[in-house]
């Protein structure tokens, strides 16, 4: 049975009617044609169901990944820790330039995280594995003679070891994001170290290096804290 002229006209006008245009012929025909009445009601049902279809929830990994990248890029400034609140810029006179203060504060945070970490006891076991996996970024340093520098390196190395000790339990996509950010920071550290080797008095490179160490410590801390949840 072929559709009549009324049905053909209905089909031609239907799209415009559903767009909100004035098409009285659509409703008039639907009142007299059972089939077209079903079609119209079906279309309206699909449209209303679509609007009311509700929203889905992404997994927590999405925010973790976004946060990790934003911290690494310096877009997010994580809230001040206990140590940073208690050793603000006014301590500069006692500890020299602000950069070491920031590094010391970040490392103090890292020390607190390490003490809380259930994986600290595994550090000695994983030490050799971690060392084999990562290049010795901290072999060169920006002030060999400074005991503070040596302490900085040791703490960041411990953070890295804790990170790699935990990596099996991390979400693969999250780990990939952290690894990428860490690689980027390591590249920056290497570049700064190379600059300082060529020009030992390059204070700008020294500040960038301090900043990179701090970001690396914060990123590793962030990864460990997230994984401890």
């Amino acid at each position, binding site marked *: 049975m072929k559709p009549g002229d009324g049905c053909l006209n209905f089909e031609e006008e239907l799209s415009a009617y559903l767009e909100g245009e004035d098409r009285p012929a659509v409703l008039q025909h639907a009142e007299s044609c059972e089939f077209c009445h079903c079609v119209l009601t*079906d279309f309206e049902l699909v449209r209303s169901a679509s609007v009311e279809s509700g929203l889905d929830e992404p997994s927590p990994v*999405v925010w973790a990944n976004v946060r990790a990248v934003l911290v690494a890029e310096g877009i997010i*400034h994580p809230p001040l820790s206990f140590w940073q609140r208690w050793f603000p810029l006014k301590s500069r006179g006692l500890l020299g330039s602000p950069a070491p203060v920031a590094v010391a504060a970040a490392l103090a945070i890292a020390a607190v995280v390490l003490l809380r970490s259930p994986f600290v006891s595994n550090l000695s076991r994983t030490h050799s594995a971690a060392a084999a996996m990562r290049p010795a970024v901290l072999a060169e340093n920006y002030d060999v003679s400074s005991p503070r520098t040596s302490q900085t390196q040791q703490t960041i190395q411990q953070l890295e070891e804790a990170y790699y000790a935990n990596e099996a339990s991390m979400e693969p996509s999250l780990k990939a994001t952290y690894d990428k950010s860490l690689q980027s920071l390591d590249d920056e550290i290497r570049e700064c170290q190379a600059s300082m080797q060529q020009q030992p008095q390059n204070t700008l490179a020294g500040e960038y290096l301090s900043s990179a160490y701090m970001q690396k410590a914060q990123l590793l801390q962030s990864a460990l804290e997230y994984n401890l949840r």
Partner: protein
Amino acid sequence: MAQEENAPTKAAADKELIARAQQGDEQAFAALFELHKRRVYSLCLRMTGDAAEAEDLAQEAFLQLFRKISTFRGESAFSTWLHRLVVNVVLMHLRKKGIQKISLDEMDNSQEEPVKREYGEDDRRLLGSVDRITLNDAIKQLPPGYRSVFVLHDVEGYEHNEIAQIMSCSVGNSKSQLHKARLKLREALRRDQGKLARAGPGDRPH
């Protein structure tokens, strides 16, 4: 755009959070993410039909948003800005996958697809209610081009002139694609309902 409840309240909340985020406040970023994550993810999910892909795209969209947040001056509503960004991210992704190599204008050479008329008892029965899972499954089955237009128009509330601009097609083409998408959805849903009518209570098709 689809109407949101408490839109002025949300806009005010967005404004305050944006100002703080522009200063690097982590909690402001987290709050903005929390406010908009479901809308962003749902849009990505409906346009791609794949949860893993949708999460990657949602992540990318938020990263682009937060990197650019310092440039947001409030000329338009934040949610509008975010929404357009998400749509662009998804469409770029689909184009890279080669799914929408051919423009919609090239595809639409045929005449309007008529409503299938196979007269019988089933065809005169209404669809009945459509639950969310069934509808989302049906949307997933749509060809990508139809799916994009349908989601943008019927789910997200974009007008055809906006869709035409976003998808680089004509307004007429957008309307045509939408009509075809609705026809296909109707057919898919009627097929599912027919299966449900013939099957037993525990035999729901997926």
